[in-house]
């Protein structure tokens, strides 16, 4: 058993090393792919944390994406803060906003929660579109980002992507994680055992908000241009949902597989964005009908095979 574990550990380390050294041996195309992959990975791990482990289907992650992106833009442009600081502030702003809306939002259950989170994002969208300070709907160019090299952005993205996976992994092995797994398996029973469900879910919500905000900061380093309509748009959540469903909801490896599939498909069909979404949507429906646990979930079920298992052995 131990040799299997260390075998997996070596494999993971190898992969990570390969990714870190990517700019030295791979083409720009692949560096871009892994960059986008890492960003989508970070975002989808957070969505998975909410939907797959806390039972909170959120259709409003774009609130934090917009907030994180705008924090990066505003603080680095207007106040000249260093970029890394602006990204961190993006995360903090997101957490604070999440805290702010948590009181009303957590009164909503199930589908109402989903709609509520979406509506909040739409509210932000309108507010930012009408806000003179951020240039109304015309958006902002993140000029300070021009100073960065492509490779720097790549490393930042890779770093935050790996960090998010690690975060989820260690989170699930912690006390919070144990509580989450209990909730996931049997919510009412776990409540009687003293698991403070509300606190668990709230913490997950806050963590996912913060990380999403930070990832968004890096994302807009790459995109350079931010405007309210797309930053707070539902399209973000659409892709996160698809990624997680196809990859395998409720597993750590799921978003990894899903993100890779998504980025690959998207780049391959970059001439025809609608087609790639069509295919994605159809695959997602197919997955739900045939293998509702997604790629990874079905593998886990059939073969009992887990790469990153949060279970304590």
């Amino acid at each position: 058993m131990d040799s299997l574990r260390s075998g997996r550990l070596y494999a993971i380390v190898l992969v990570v090393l390969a990714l870190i050294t990517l700019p030295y041996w791979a083409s720009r195309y692949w560096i871009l792919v892994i960059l986008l992959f890492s960003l989508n990975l970070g975002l989808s791990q957070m969505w998975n944390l909410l939907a797959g482990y806390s039972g909170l289907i959120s259709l409003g992650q774009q609130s934090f994406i917009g907030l994180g992106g705008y924090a990066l833009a505003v603080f680095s442009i207007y106040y000249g803060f260093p970029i890394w600081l602006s990204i961190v502030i993006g995360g903090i702003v997101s957490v604070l906003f999440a805290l702010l809306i948590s009181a009303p939002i957590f009164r909503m259950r199930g589908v109402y929660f989903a709609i509520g989170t979406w509506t909040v994002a739409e509210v932000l969208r309108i507010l930012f579109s009408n806000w003179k300070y951020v240039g109304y709907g015309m958006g902002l160019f993140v000029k300070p980002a021009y100073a960065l090299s492509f490779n720097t952005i790549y490393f930042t993205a890779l770093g935050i992507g790996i960090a998010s996976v690690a975060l989820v992994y260690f989170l699930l092995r912690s006390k919070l994680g144990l509580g989450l797994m209990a909730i996931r398996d049997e919510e009412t029973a776990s409540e009687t055992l003293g698991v403070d469900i509300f606190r668990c879910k709230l913490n997950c919500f806050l963590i996912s908000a913060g990380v999403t905000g930070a990832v968004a900061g890096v994302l807009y380093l790459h995109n350079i241009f931010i405007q309210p309509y797309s930053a707070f748009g539902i399209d973000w959540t659409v892709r996160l949902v698809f990624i997680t469903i196809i990859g395998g909801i409720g597993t750590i490896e799921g978003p990894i597989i899903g993100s890779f599939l998504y980025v690959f498909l998207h780049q391959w069909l970059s001439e025809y964005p609608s087609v790639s979404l069509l295919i994605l949507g159809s695959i997602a429906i197919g997955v739900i009908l045939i293998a509702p646990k997604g790629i990874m979930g079905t593998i886990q079920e059939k073969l009992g095979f887990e790469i990153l298992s949060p279970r304590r052995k």
Partner: protein
Amino acid sequence: MLSFLGELKGPITNGLLLGGLYGIIGIGMSMIFGIVRLVNLAHGDLVILASYLSLVTMSFFPVNPLFTLIIVIPAMCIIGFVVQYYLLNQVLGKGMNPPLLVAFGLSIIVQNILLLIFTPDARTLLTSISVKTIPLGGFINIPLVYLVDFICSLVTIVLLSRFFNRTYMGKAIRAASDDEGAAQLMGINTKTIYAFAMAIATGTAAVAGVLVGMTFTFYPHTGPEYLIIAFGVVIVGGLGSLLGTFLGGLILGLAQILGAHFLGPGFQLLSGYVILLMVLTFKPTGLFAKG
């Protein structure tokens, strides 16, 4: 005080009339939510699909968009039946999430198919009534198309109400939504019944789509906008009654227009969202929910 109210008579009337349109947008979603316990995230896109179908029909027969309903309604009903029978029925009863996600997937597929076929250009179902206003009661002018929307909406809802209360199938649908198992014991094939219910819901989406197309411009991605409106109507109005949904529409329409009047046109949608959030927080079953 009176002059203040006098100033408002335009927005109030417009708000109520617009609310009629919103009401019919929400009816389809309310039906499915109440009967099959499914939140059809693709509802907004189905409405827009109907608008495009009307557009296509009009390119063959240059008539008033309302006449295209003759084709669009049956077409949408068939689509709804097929979607429910072959797709959504497979995931019913597998928990809350799969139907939600399948509907989500469907929404994206519809949007992108429309995008591929029709390009992202703005469209509208232009008719002479789209730009006319008529005087009402001699003291205000209202856009004629809003009035038409309101009347069509009201007529549809009255027809629906008669269907549910007077026909066998309507009652069977109500029975199946009360207790699926017991309905089966009565000899009702609930899977087929749900498909018929969905067909009716998409039928209302057809009416809504044509009306929307006549009143506003639309793009392939306008669907989610109307989805949120439908949510708003259903949640504010509450489940379980057609009248409640209609009233929900009126309230939402009123809130939006008044919001635009006081805060500016950019905040029209915002007023609606705020009302939606407040109802979600304090009374998610809706203001007029039955029991």
